[in-house]
C-alpha cells in the first residue's frame, strides 16, 4: 500500500497557493482594462483623450499643474510617468524607441545629453516648429533642439548656465577676497579666462600649503571648458574630427591634466563618486563650476558645512551644463494634441511654477525676467541673488557646442584618460592622451 502523500501543511500550502493564483489572475484581468493612452486615430477636438508625459528626477510638474490643463482642455487628461534618474529614463526611452516607438509617452522629457540621438533620428519625432513660439527660448537653447534642416524637435524646459560656486570661509582663511563681487573681479570679471582661474588657484593651493584643492574634479572642470568650443569633436556636418590631430582638445586635455595633478589644483576625485560626495565634508576644495541644479547637490552633500557662496563670473565667457527638452515621439497617437500640450507646459507661466517647485532654472526669456525668478535668492548660498546671477550667466552663453552622434563616445574617451591620470594616478599626461587616441581609433569612425 502506498501511503505517501503530502502532509497536511503542504496540502494547505498547495491549496492556498492555487487559490492565490486564481485570485491573482482575476485581479490581473480586472486591472488590465486601464493603461495605455486613448486608442482612436481620428483627431476629433472633443474626443476624450489621455496624454502621458514622461519625466525623470524632478521636473517640478505637480499633478495640480497638469490638472489645470484639463480646465482649459476639458477633453484632455494628463498623466505623468516619472523615472527616478535620467539614466533609468534613458534606458526606458531608448529601449522603446529601439522596438519601434510603441509605448513611448506622448510627450517625453529628454536630457540635453540624449538630444544628439533625437536629432539623429529626427523622423521618429514630431516637428514642433511654431512661428508663434519664436523668441520664447534663449536662442542657444532653441538651437540645441533644432535639426540641420531647421525642424524644431524639442521645447526647452530648463537650462544650466554656469557660475562659480566657492567656499567663502576657505577663501578668507587663505587670504583671498571672499565677497562675491570681489571674487568675480579676482577671476577677471567679464574677461575671466581659464588661465586666470588656474593662476589664482595655484596661489590659493600654495597658501593652503596643499591642504585644500582649488576645484573638485578634473572631469567637471574639463566639461566646463569643452562646452565653450563650437566644434569640439565633430564638424558641423556630423563627421568626427580625428582626435590624434585635434589640437584644441589636446591642449585642453594637457592643460587640465597638468593643472589638476602636477600643480595639484584638483581634489583628485571623479564627479558623483562616493569620494567626491564625501569631499564636500572634508574641506577638500574651494571652488567648482556650478549650474543652478548643482546648488542643490552642493547643499545635500555639504550637510551642515557653511560658507558656500556664488560669484557672478565664469571663466572663458558663459557656459551651459545640462538642461532638458520636451519632445513628441512620432509614434504617438495624438501627436497634434501632444504638441499643443508640450507648448503649454513649456510656456513661461508653467515653467515659473516648476521653478518654484524644483528650482529648475527656466530657459524661457520671459520666465527669467519674471520677479519670481529674477528676484529669487538661495539661502544656503549665503542668500546669493541666484535669479540675477543665473540670468547674467545665461546671457553670457555665446557658444553652443555641436554635439553630433559621436560627441559622447569621443568625450568619454578623453574624460576617461583624464580621470585615469588625475584620479587614479596612472601613467603620464602623454601616455594617457595616447590612450584616449587609441580608444578613439578603436571606435573605427574613420
Amino acid at each position, binding site marked *: *500500500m*502506498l*501511503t505517501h*502523500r*503530502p502532509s497536511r501543511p503542504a*496540502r494547505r500550502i*498547495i491549496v492556498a497557493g492555487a487559490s492565490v493564483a486564481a485570485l491573482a489572475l482575476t485581479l490581473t484581468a480586472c486591472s488590465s482594462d486601464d493603461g495605455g493612452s486613448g486608442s482612436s486615430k481620428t483627431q476629433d477636438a472633443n474626443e476624450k483623450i489621455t496624454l502621458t508625459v514622461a519625466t525623470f528626477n524632478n521636473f517640478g510638474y505637480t499633478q495640480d499643474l497638469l490638472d489645470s490643463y484639463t480646465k482649459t482642455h476639458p477633453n484632455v487628461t494628463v498623466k505623468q510617468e516619472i523615472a527616478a534618474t535620467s539614466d533609468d529614463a534613458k*534606458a526606458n526611452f*531608448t529601449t522603446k*524607441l*529601439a522596438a519601434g516607438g510603441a509605448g513611448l509617452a506622448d510627450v517625453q522629457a529628454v536630457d540635453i545629453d540624449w538630444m544628439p*540621438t533625437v536629432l*539623429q*533620428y529626427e523622423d*521618429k519625432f514630431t516637428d514642433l516648429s511654431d512661428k508663434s513660439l519664436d523668441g520664447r527660448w534663449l536662442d542657444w537653447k532653441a538651437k540645441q533642439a533644432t535639426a540641420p534642416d531647421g525642424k524644431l524637435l524639442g521645447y526647452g524646459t530648463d537650462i544650466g548656465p554656469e557660475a562659480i560656486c566657492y567656499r567663502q570661509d576657505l577663501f578668507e582663511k587663505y587670504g583671498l577676497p571672499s565677497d562675491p563681487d570681489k571674487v568675480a573681479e579676482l577671476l577677471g570679471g567679464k574677461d575671466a579666462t581659464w588661465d586666470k582661474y588656474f593662476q589664482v588657484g595655484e596661489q590659493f593651493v600654495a597658501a593652503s600649503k596643499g591642504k585644500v584643492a582649488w576645484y573638485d574634479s578634473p572631469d567637471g572642470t574639463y566639461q566646463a571648458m569643452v562646452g565653450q568650443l563650437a566644434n569640439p569633436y565633430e564638424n558641423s556636418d556630423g563627421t568626427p574630427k580625428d582626435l590624434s590631430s585635434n589640437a584644441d582638445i589636446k591642449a585642453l586635455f594637457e592643460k587640465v591634466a597638468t593643472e589638476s595633478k602636477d600643480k595639484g589644483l584638483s581634489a*583628485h*576625485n*571623479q564627479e*558623483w*563618486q*562616493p*569620494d567626491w560626495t*564625501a*569631499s564636500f565634508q*572634508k574641506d577638500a576644495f574651494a571652488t567648482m563650476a556650478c549650474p543652478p541644479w548643482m546648488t542643490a547637490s552642493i547643499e545635500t552633500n555639504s550637510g551642515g558645512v557653511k560658507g558656500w557662496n556664488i560669484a557672478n563670473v565664469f571663466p572663458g565667457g558663459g557656459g551651459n551644463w545640462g538642461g532638458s527638452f520636451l519632445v513628441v515621439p512620432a509614434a504617438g497617437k495624438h501627436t497634434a494634441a501632444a504638441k499643443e500640450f508640450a507648448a503649454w507646459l513649456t510656456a513661461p507661466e508653467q515653467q515659473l511654477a516648476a521653478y518654484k517647485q524644483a528650482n529648475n532654472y527656466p530657459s524661457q526669456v520671459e520666465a527669467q525676467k519674471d520677479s519670481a525668478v529674477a528676484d529669487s535668492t538661495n539661502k544656503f548660498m549665503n542668500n546669493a541673488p541666484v535669479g540675477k546671477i543665473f540670468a547674467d550667466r545665461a546671457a553670457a552663453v555665446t557658444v553652443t557646442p555641436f554635439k553630433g552622434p*559621436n*560627441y*559622447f*563616445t569621443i568625450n*568619454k574617451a578623453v*574624460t*576617461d*584618460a583624464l*580621470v*585615469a591620470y588625475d*584620479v*587614479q*594616478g*596612472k601613467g603620464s599626461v602623454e601616455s594617457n592622451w595616447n*590612450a584616449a587616441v587609441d580608444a578613439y581609433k*578603436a*571606435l*573605427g569612425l574613420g
Partner: protein
Amino acid sequence: MTALTTAPTPPRVGPPEKRRRRVGFSQRLSRWDVKVSPYLYISPFFIIFAITGLFPLLYTGWVSLHKWTLIGGEAGYTGFDNFTAIFQQSEFWLSLRNTFMIFLLSSVPQVIIAIVLAAILNQNIRAKTFWRMGVLIPYIVAPVAVGLIFGQLFADQYGVINTALHAIGLPKIGWHSNTFASWSAIATMVNFRWIGYNTLIFLAAMQAVPTDLYEAAVIDGAGRMRQFFSITLPQIRATIIFVVITSTIGGLQIFDEPRTFDVYGTGGPSHQWETTTMYLWNLGWGPQQNLGRAAAVAWLLFVVIVIFALINYFVSSRISTSEARRGTSKQGRGRRSSTDRKGAVR
C-alpha cells in the same frame, strides 16, 4: 493508494478482480501514459520559453549578422563582419580577462565556503530557522542599499576600509585604480550576495542524504571529517555539479555587481573592471548604440560560457565521482547511491 485524498481523480486502481477485467484498456492507457507523460511534464517550460525566450534569442542572432544601430534599426546584412570587428577590439579581450578573473575570485571561494557553511548548518543546531534565514539576508537587500554600502566601504580616498588601513599605518588600497584590487572588491560583493544562496542549495541536498549512511560510518569509526569527505560530498554530487554549472554560467555573465561598483557603471576609466556583459551593454546602449556588435558579443560570450560550463562539468563530475568511489569502498558497506544507478523507469 486509498489514502490519497488529495488526488484530483478517484483511484483508478481498484480491487484485483476489477482490474483484471479492464486490463486491455488500462494497459493501453498506461502505455500511452508512460509515453506521453514526460513530454507533457516538460511542455510548460518549452511552451512559455518558446514565447518569451526563443524569440529574443533568434532576434539577437539575426541582429548580430547585420549592421544595426539601437534606434536606427537594421542597415544591411553584413555576414560575420560584426564578429571579426569584435575580435580586433582590445576592449573585448580586456573584458574577457576581467570577467574570467572576477569569476575565479568569486566562484571558487563561494562554492567552498557555501559547502562548509551548509555542513555547519546541517548539524543538529538550535534555532535552525534563524540561522538558515540569516545567511540568506544578503540576497534580499535591494541593490541600491548594497551599492551605497559597498561604495562607502571601497571608496579610494575616504572609504571605510582605507580609513581603517590608514589609521593603523598601512597604505591605502586603490580599490578603483588598481585593477586587481577592483576585481577583489567586486568579487567580495558577489560573494556577499550569493554565498548564503548557495549554502541553502547545498543544505537542501545534504538534508536528503540518508541518515543510515552516517550511522554506518559512525559504527565503522569514521570521524566527522571522514564522514564529510566520504559521505556528504559524494552524496551531494548532483548538487555540486548543479552549483558549479550555474555559478559558471552566472559568474561569466556577471553584470549587476561591477555595474554598481561605481556610479557610472561603465567599468572604469581604463576598463579595469568592465566585464563582457557590461561591454556588450555599453556597445548597445552606450553612446555608440551599436546593437549589431553588441549582439555579436552576446553570442561570442555564449560560446565561451558553454565551453567553460562543459569543462567545469567534466572536472566536477570527475572529482565527485572519484570521491564517491573512494568513499563507498572505504566504508566497506558497498552501498550504492541512487545517483550511480543507470536505470530509469520506463
